[in-house]
């Protein structure tokens, strides 16, 4: 029963809950106890969801439920990576003599969905020192500030992490890759 409801109206329910939470956060405590305002808040949430549903926006692009909950841990990991890259770029900007070695690299993008590819390309751009310049079929062209920032291993790890949060098939793919890497590590020594 629950599964049926989630299948029929899962995105609607997710959007209602998100917008309701947003209303609670933005309106502040003194509004929650006021029943008139609470009803107005609920009504506006329902109106928004109904209009969005009528406009046909509640698809996998409008309400991307497939990237949850993996995206939360990923954003935490990404923040740390951004911090590290920030320090490198700041050091390059402040050092007396410029020592840059810009490079263009192709990074493979195995994400199956559009949103997975978007998250991956945006993560690359968001990390200082690397900017995604062009998207090809199955790869992303990246401009890197220095040789060390263009290191493909780091960006491949990022790509695998994005695959792991991107729906069930992505999770399977990432799990299989992890097994392969573990096997390689066993064989190598």
């Amino acid at each position, binding site marked *: 029963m629950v599964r049926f409801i989630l299948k029929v109206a899962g995105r609607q329910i997710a959007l209602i809950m998100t917008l309701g939470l947003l209303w609670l956060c933005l309106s502040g405590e003194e509004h929650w106890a006021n029943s008139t305002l609470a009803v107005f808040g609920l009504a506006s949430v329902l109106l928004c969801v109904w209009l969005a549903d009528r406009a046909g926006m509640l698809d996998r692009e409008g309400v991307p439920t497939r990237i949850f909950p993996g995206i939360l841990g990923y954003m935490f990991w990404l923040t740390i990576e951004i911090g590290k890259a920030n320090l490198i*770029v*700041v050091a390059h900007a402040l050092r007396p003599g*410029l020592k840059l070695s*810009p490079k263009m690299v192709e990074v493979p993008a195995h994400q199956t969905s559009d949103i997975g590819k978007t998250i991956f390309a945006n993560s690359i751009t*968001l990390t200082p020192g690397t900017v*995604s310049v062009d998207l090809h079929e199955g790869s992303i062209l990246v401009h890197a500030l220095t040789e060390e920032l263009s290191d493909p291993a780091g960006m491949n790890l990022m790509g695998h992490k994005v695959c792991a949060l991107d729906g069930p098939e992505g999770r399977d793919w990432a799990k299989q890759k992890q097994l392969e890497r573990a096997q390689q590590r066993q064989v190598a020594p």
Partner: protein
Amino acid sequence: MNGELILDLISWALFLTGGLFVFAGSLGMLRFPDFYTRIHAAGVTDTFGSELILLAMALQSDDFTTVIKLFFIALFLLLTSPVSTHAIAHSAWVGGFNPLLGKKLEYPEEELPR
């Protein structure tokens, strides 16, 4: 030492670090040699410069709704700034503008695959 003083100290430290990141980003934007490398310097201001300052502002506010609003500003900055950066870089690339490459910072001699 009371709690408010400690919060103030942390928040001022964050303000100063954020300001330093913004300054370094702007300096990099002036110093770096070509268009594509300057984008990277702007990325520093986009990410840690603005986010640290927003975090410091959240520590200064005494009201939960303000913290939430600052959090949403930070989130929207994180989501939108790479999109605009990619739009600029992509249009320069498609328009046929070559980047400086390698340690010697030279334009590539042969045509790059587009």
